[in-house]
């Protein structure tokens, strides 16, 4: 039986009769909420703006049609979005074990720092003399990243992990082209995150998979056999998406370099090794770092992220613009204009401005709070927590690589042994009823019905024990063929949603009832 920290012992609810319907459709604190298009109108507003008139200089293009934007008063608007917020799960509500996503606590000091007017209320094109503190912050964060990774330099502008991958591959391609060596192929392990092959294709490369061994690691022999003059780079994730460290990483790097290629590392899983291993010591040429994973900037329901890329000395000359450089006591911005003399080989600009400043402030606040010692402990606690989950559940859930030694920061299970056609999806939805966000499902693709559990260092032993209890319970039900799992979730704001219908007849914007009927 699960016991929480207070010693309070939850009791299983009686199987009650169907709950009576309510007039409103609400169920006490679970409130239904209509769309703004159904409750607002174009004549309502929540702001008080002075009327203005006078000469128009709009070039004869003044708007003469209604836009159709409903407004709400401030109390209505606050209530609408507060009610909606209550239909979301969040780290602030509980353990969020999404593998490869690193959903750790987001400290609120970071939010406060990011909102300081000196950071939040400055313009990207302000004269550089007036934003020396901002440039210093970017340079300082860059220095932390370079030291933590043991690399040579860092590009701060990429907007998210996938944008960082693109940055790394464009630098690699530029470096190869600079030596007159056009190569066409990027090798990607079959367990890779989907962004890796998508990015390689976006950067103009052909993608080939390299297989994994039965132990869940890159097949070194197969990799070596495939290397050749057409291979531009290997994109590798380390720790990998099976939750394991690649022990042959140095040998992989050496082999790739010997064949004239370069090594890109997907840094999504840096949280497992920060402060314990420096990727620079593993022979990596480029790696992006998701500040919204390892360094706690909030994920915000799908971004904004931030994906700075650290480079080896070989790739540094090709890094994108703009970047910050310290010259004497001053911080200067290297842009197209100033790049000429020293940075003429840059591959160019990836985004309009300097990157995700609002994420930089949060990440630096987190790093300074933790320090070199605290960050090392972050990795240790994250890895310990994941191993604790792995070993506490491997008797009930199949752990395909449980015999491969300790995992890193995430524990991987499969759906082996589930009865009556029950699936990973059913188990995940049952976890929702237990009050948890499910783990990452069906990824990596190399494991059948994969379940990738990443607890992060945020969780206490008591919180882990309660989660383990819940996961054990639903796993046992899945193995016993308990078909009620197929109906889960039953306690969430919505029952299972019909994703096939959504894709077959896409409704992507609200249509007024008469429009919707006409479209039928």
């Amino acid at each position, binding site marked *: 039986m699960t016991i929480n920290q207070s010693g309070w012992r939850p009791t299983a609810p009686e199987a009650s009769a169907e709950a009576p319907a309510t007039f409103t459709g609400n169920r006490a604190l679970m409130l239904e909420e209509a769309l703004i298009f159904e409750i607002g109108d174009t004549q309502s507003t929540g702001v008080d703006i002075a009327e203005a008139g006078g000469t128009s200089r709009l070039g004869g293009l003044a708007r003469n049609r209604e836009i159709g934007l409903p*407004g709400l008063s401030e109390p209505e608007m606050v209530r609408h979005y507060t009610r909606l*917020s209550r239909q979301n799960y969040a780290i602030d509500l509980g353990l969020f074990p999404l593998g490869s996503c690193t959903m750790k606590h987001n400290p609120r000091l970071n939010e406060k720092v990011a909102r300081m007017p000196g950071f939040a209320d400055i313009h990207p094109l302000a004269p550089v003399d007036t934003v020396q503190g901002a440039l210093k912050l970017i340079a300082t964060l860059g220095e932390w990243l370079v030291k933590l990774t043991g690399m040579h330099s860092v590009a701060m502008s990429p907007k998210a992990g996938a944008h960082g991958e693109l940055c790394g591959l464009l630098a690699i391609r530029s470096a190869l082209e600079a030596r007159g060596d056009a190569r066409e192929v990027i090798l990607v392990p079959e367990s890779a995150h989907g962004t890796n092959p998508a*990015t390689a294709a976006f950067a103009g490369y052909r993608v080939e998979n390299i297989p994994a061994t039965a132990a869940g690691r890159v097949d070194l022999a197969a990799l070596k056999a495939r290397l050749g003059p057409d291979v531009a780079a290997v994109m590798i994730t380390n720790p990998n998406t099976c939750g394991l460290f690649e022990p042959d990483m140095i040998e992989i790097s050496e082999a790739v370099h010997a064949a004239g290629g370069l090594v890109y590392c997907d840094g999504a899983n840096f949280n497992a090794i920060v402060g314990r291993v420096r990727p620079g010591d593993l022979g990596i040429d480029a790696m992006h770092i998701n500040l919204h994973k390892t360094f706690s900037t909030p994920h915000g329901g799908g971004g904004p992220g931030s994906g700075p890329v650290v480079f080896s000395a070989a790739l540094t000359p090709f890094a994108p613009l703009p970047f910050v450089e310290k010259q004497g006591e001053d911080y200067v911005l290297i842009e197209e204009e100033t790049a000429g003399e020293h940075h003429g080989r840059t591959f160019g600009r990836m985004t*309009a401005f300097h990157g995700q400043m609002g*994420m930089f402030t949060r990440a630096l606040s987190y790093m300074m709070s933790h320090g070199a010692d605290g960050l*090392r402990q972050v990795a240790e606690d994250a890895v310990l927590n994941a191993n604790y989950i792995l070993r506490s559940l491997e008797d009930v859930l199949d752990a395909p690589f449980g015999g491969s030694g300790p995992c890193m920061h995430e524990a991987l299970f499969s759906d082996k042994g589930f009865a009556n056609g029950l699936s990973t999806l059913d188990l995940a939805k049952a976890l929702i009823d237990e009050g948890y966000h499910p783990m990452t499902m069906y990824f990596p693709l190399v494991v059948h019905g994969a379940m990738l559990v990443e607890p992060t260092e945020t969780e206490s032993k008591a919180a882990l024990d309660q989660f383990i209890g819940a996961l054990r319970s639903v796993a046992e039900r899945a193995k016993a063929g308990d078909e009620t799992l197929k109906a889960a979730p039953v306690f969430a704001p919505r029952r299972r949603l019909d994703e096939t219908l959504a894709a077959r007849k896409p409704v992507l914007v609200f249509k007024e009832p008469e429009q919707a009927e006409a479209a039928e």
Partner: protein
Amino acid sequence: MLAVVGAGSIDDLFVDVPEGARLDGAIHDLPNHASELSVERQLGAMARENMAAGEVPFFLGCGAYRHHIPASVDHLIQRGEYLTSYTPYQPEIAQGTLQLLFEFQTQVARLYGCDVANASMYDGSTGCWEAIAMAGRITRRKKALLSSGLHPHYVSVARTMAKFTGDELVHRAPMLEAGTDLDSLEVDGETSCVVVQYPDIIGRIGDLSALAAKCQAAGALLIAVVTEPVALGAIKSPGEMGADIVVGEGQSIGVGLQFGGPYVGLFATREKYVRQMPGRLAGQTVDAEGKRGFVLTLSTREQHIRREKATSNICTSSVLCALAWTMHMTLLGEKGLRQLAALNHAKAVAAAERLARVPGVSVVNDSFFNEFTLRLPKEARPAVRAMAERGVLGGVSLGRLYPDEEGLANGLVVAVTETVTDEDVEALAAALEGVLA
């Protein structure tokens, strides 16, 4: 816990790390942990080294605008349910974010005058390249004409990408004159798309209708880029003038200046092109009990399903900024947005008239919304720096944006939003007069 794990020490968990790569202790040349008080103090000192826009007369624009953001917006996006949630892959417990994204998509589509919009891009500049790439997929052509009025940084981003994809980009710098190049763009049978900024980098507003017709006749797509969404409260939407894809920067609504990021890219198009769109989409559906709900949909376009065949590699985008955008837009409503746009325009017109009276200064634009370009009697770049020394952030010099274009060196782009007071305009006029003397 170690006993359960079967490890003697934490170090045992890192046995797979090659010995030579193991760090013995904390990295020595970084500081150790610090208290909340200490971190706040250190970063506060760094923040105070910057001249915050709210502390001085402020007139910068060119792709990032300072608007008043109502307090309720920032309060709501700090709710943990929004701030600390993940991409809504488990829709049953993410209806809050999903319904908001559905509202966002609808608002963006209506504002832009398009059928559909996605759930956000990183920012306007990356969205602009994604639109060019999408046009290439649709037309199977590789030549993009970029109007001279397109933001030079957006052009740079497109150039970076085109270098690797083999797309041909045709572009030249703008001229300091009232007329745009919209009528002179040579659309031919090779042209994939024409990219036009509306209003453009120096503030001019050009009618897109004729160009849209020309594109359509040539089988090319018209992409309109909007860097100031508030403008669309006052002027016609690009969609109603025939643009096929409308993209832009959403930062003005709900998202602060933040030194350039995070911002939020808006992306809308015609219904028939939806399967070629990049990025996430929220769609309406029903649950097992028939209740309306929302899910991420059409994900067969996306990287996590399609891998190397995806329409884009984008994954995490800018959802929290999109939520802030929608909250702010809902608070404004049509009435508030139109009032806000009218106020911006009136203030800008008054400022343009006032600044034109500064000796030697003239206004380049015939048409503009809340941003116009001044021609100074000397180079604008040093003038901007000199004004900053007098405590006035007086605009963006075209010399900063186009360092190689001598013909633009005297251009100063001035943005005037609702946050600017009459006293600010007088301060700018005085500062200009001072530095030009």
